[in-house]
């Protein structure tokens, strides 16, 4: 026997009709309530039908509410949605307030299956700049360079080395010496 029904489904969140951006559309298309006319477990359902049902149906002409009397059966609800999902729910020993609350919930639901979300966000445009590739943002000159390349291999030298500093100091000293010699020669003339 498979265990698939024992675990919660997993998936990604989706919103029907662009989150109802243009107009609201009730996602439930049919609610069926099955109940018994005589049993005590259907008492709340019978109360709901007597007092609240007519108003509820008049206020919500977008979907149909079916009532199916079934002899000696436990009362339950079946809600069918535009996305093809179907929900069963038991109303066994529920009272009137509970039933009107649950029926209202079924009306306002989007029909998304109850599942564990793998990601909490969803977008229809995953990336504007396009998917990454190892060749993205690479220097185009790499296409024509031959490897191994000495210039690409060498470490970036930000500061001069001690040897370079020494050579620079030496050159500076030589320049100063030559200038001093010139000025001396001019004085002697």
């Amino acid at each position, binding site marked *: 026997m498979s265990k698939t029904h024992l675990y919660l489904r997993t998936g990604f969140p989706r919103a029907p009709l662009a989150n109802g951006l243009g107009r609201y559309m009730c996602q439930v298309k049919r609610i069926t309530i099955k109940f018994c006319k005589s049993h005590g477990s259907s008492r709340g359902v019978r109360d709901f039908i007597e007092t609240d049902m007519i108003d509820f149906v008049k206020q919500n002409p977008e979907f149909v509410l079916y009532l199916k009397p079934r002899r000696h059966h436990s009362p339950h609800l079946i809600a069918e949605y535009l996305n093809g999902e179907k929900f069963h729910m038991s109303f066994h020993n529920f009272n009137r307030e509970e039933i009107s609350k649950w029926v209202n919930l079924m009306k306002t639901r989007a029909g998304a299956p109850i599942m564990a979300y793998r990601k909490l966000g969803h977008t229809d445009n995953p990336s504007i700049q396009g*998917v*990454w590739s*190892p060749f993205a943002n690479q220097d185009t000159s790499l296409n024509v360079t031959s*490897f191994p*390349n000495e210039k*690409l291999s060498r470490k*970036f030298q930000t500061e001069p080395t001690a040897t370079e500093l020494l050579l620079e100091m030496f050159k500076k000293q030589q320049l100063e010496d030559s200038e001093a010699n010139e000025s001396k020669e001019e004085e002697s003339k």
Partner: protein
Amino acid sequence: MSAYERVKQWNTFARIWHIYDAKWQNPFDSAKVISKHIQGLHKPIYHPLNNCGDHVIVFNSRHIALPGYEWKKRAYFHHTGYPGGASWTLAWQLHEINPTLVMQKAVKWELPRGLSKFGLMARLHIFPDEEIPEELLKNVTSQLRQLRPVPRTLDSYSDKEIEEFPKVMDYPNDYILK
């Protein structure tokens, strides 16, 4: 998925070949960089279940530079499994036997423990000198930067450069150099 989307997918998961010059480089520091590229950790698409590692060619492994007294002091342990089968090979001895092994072991230690090591190590290609097979070299599209500058040796300086180099003093003519 359209043909264009399919090609984009291939492009994203394309395997890259990097090349790394180990000349005068510390193999243990280099191994940290190389192991990241072998695992694909440098990619934004990285995921442990995602096979996105790259190939790395390391050449000049004969000319690596170990820090401090590592050549003398670092010992590589091996045990044959028999009593008295333990052996300790010093780094310089191992390097004489096979000039790629110090580098190879350094990278192997950096990789995560487990069986994935074998598959990852297959993407590392080490060559002791400058000679790299042409069929490997033609795959290369990227070069990893060295971690430290390669110092110039005295041989690389010309006679003129040595002559012009600043000196604190000249040796006297009768001074005998040892």
